[in-house]
């Protein structure tokens, strides 16, 4: 079972030391978004596949475990995968397989494959970003990239209190455990156990609400108002940060040139698999 306290572990992972971890937060965010955008607009398999290889190299540079990253990928896959799996059956094209009313078309299959490859690349990019950037750095990167102030504030506060929330929940669960409570226990009626879990959730809501009130008071006490600005460290990206981003951009440009000039020679990988 994936425990909520696992979030903490992800953040520890994100605070390691590697060339990728040490990149400036904004650069990592921009390059992640750039890779995702390029990958989503490409109609051939060639670009996404090369980008995936690039991401796997970055993964190695970031000293992340392939196995753990793959597990996380599998965990995230169903969200987009559910949409993709229907594509071969619902898109128009030449029928290549038929069973009673169920048909698979070549257009649909190609589209499904393209979507799947795109999804894998996007998820890999996000996994790398989230495992090399602590939550607080993500929040500050969004802020520095001119995210609306109120949203940025909410994000920052959420990041801060997520940990407190997890601690509180862990404390309640520990104290329940100390009194022999287990949701899978057999000594108590099922209904009663569910009720206790309900109380726990209710208590968390209540605590969250009250914590919010108290934090707001303490913020107001320090002069907070709707006109307040947030403090951002003026740290500009270094040469190596720009180099990283530039490398990715150059690779993408080269890929696009190859596609433009030699798409005929790449065979299936250079074929336009889009559906329009």
């Amino acid at each position, binding site marked *: 079972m994936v425990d909520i306290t696992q979030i903490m572990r992800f953040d520890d992972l994100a605070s390691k030391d590697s060339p990728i971890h040490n990149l400036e937060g904004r650069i990592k965010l921009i390059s992640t978004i750039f890779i995702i955008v390029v990958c989503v607009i490409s109609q051939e398999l060639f670009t996404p596949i090369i980008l995936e290889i690039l991401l796997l190299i970055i993964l190695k540079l970031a000293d992340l475990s392939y196995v753990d990253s793959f597990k996380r990928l599998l965990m995230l896959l169903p969200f987009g995968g559910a949409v993709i799996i229907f594509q071969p059956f619902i898109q128009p094209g030449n029928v290549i397989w038929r069973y009673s009313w169920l048909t698979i078309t070549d257009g649909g299959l190609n589209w499904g494959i393209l979507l799947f490859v795109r999804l894998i690349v996007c998820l890999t990019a996000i996994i790398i970003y989230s495992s090399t950037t602590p939550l607080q750095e993500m929040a500050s990167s969004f802020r520095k990239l001119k995210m609306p102030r109120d949203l940025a504030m909410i994000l*920052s506060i959420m990041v801060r*209190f997520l940990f407190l929330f997890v*601690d509180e929940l862990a404390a309640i669960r520990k104290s329940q455990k100390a009194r022999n409570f287990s949701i899978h226990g057999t000594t108590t009626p099922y209904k009663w156990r569910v009720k206790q879990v309900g109380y726990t959730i209710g208590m968390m809501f209540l605590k969250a609400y009250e914590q919010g009130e108290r934090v707001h008071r*303490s913020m107001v*006490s320090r*002069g907070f*108002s709707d006109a307040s*600005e947030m*403090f951002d460290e003026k740290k500009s990206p270094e040469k190596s940060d720009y180099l990283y981003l530039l490398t990715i951009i150059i690779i993408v440009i080269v890929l696009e040139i190859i596609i433009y000039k030699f798409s005929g020679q790449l065979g299936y990988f250079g074929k336009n698999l889009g559906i329009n």
Partner: protein
Amino acid sequence: MEHIHLETKNLTFTYPDGTQALKNVNIKIKKGEKIAIMGPNGAGKSTLFSHFNGLTEPTSGHVEIDGKKIIFERDELLEVRQKVGIVFQDPNDQLFAPTVKEDVAFGPMNLGLEYDEVEKRIKESLEMVGMSGFEEKTPHHLSGGQQKRVAIAGIIAMRPEIMILDEPTAGLDPEGVDKVLNILNDLNDEGMSIVISSHDIEMVNGFADKIFVLYHGEIIAQGDKHQIFSDKELLKKAHLKAPVTTEVLYKLKEKGLDVDTEKLSIDEAVEEILKATKN
């Protein structure tokens, strides 16, 4: 005439449900004083504190800062909140930013200060509380004592004239308590008035110049520590206990030794006992 820094006049506060939290509270705090407000749980200490910088509007009566009544308007309040800084009991209520640095920056930013000035104040206040080098740390990963000191730094950075601390030593280990008290004494040496609330008799004994006893929303006694701690009836009424030195001297007096029960510090008490036993 002495400079009255903070004064409450017939301050009364009633919660919407009808509970009267404060009844006609009149206190005067002079510039540079170290004040302790003592009282049992639920006496109204936190409610009283939230009136000091206009977080709560009194039902009747008012608060004056430097002889000027708190007016509940935005600009006026901003000024009051710069002058009167409150450190809350639970650092988790106060430290909301993702890093120590950003949290300490919060108050100065709200004052509309320039970036360089904010940087300077962060450095200065973290140095003052002995937390330099923790700028990039997440408050969550700090110990209780460290969190407390960062919370204090967040207030110092606003350069207040009066600092209010709700139970500043609750939940800290003895070393943590000493560190916090040292910071407060340093600030006081620089002219800042300090107001704390506490049940910790021994700590208050060593720290405060003047004590107010709050009970059921009323100030039932005020005076220096000798006056307050030697009044056993009062302490009993307010659910407090006398310092160990007082207890010992009272016991000795009961046994017939001629000692002055108003001696509070350990050194004074020892002197007094030696003197009495020699006679």
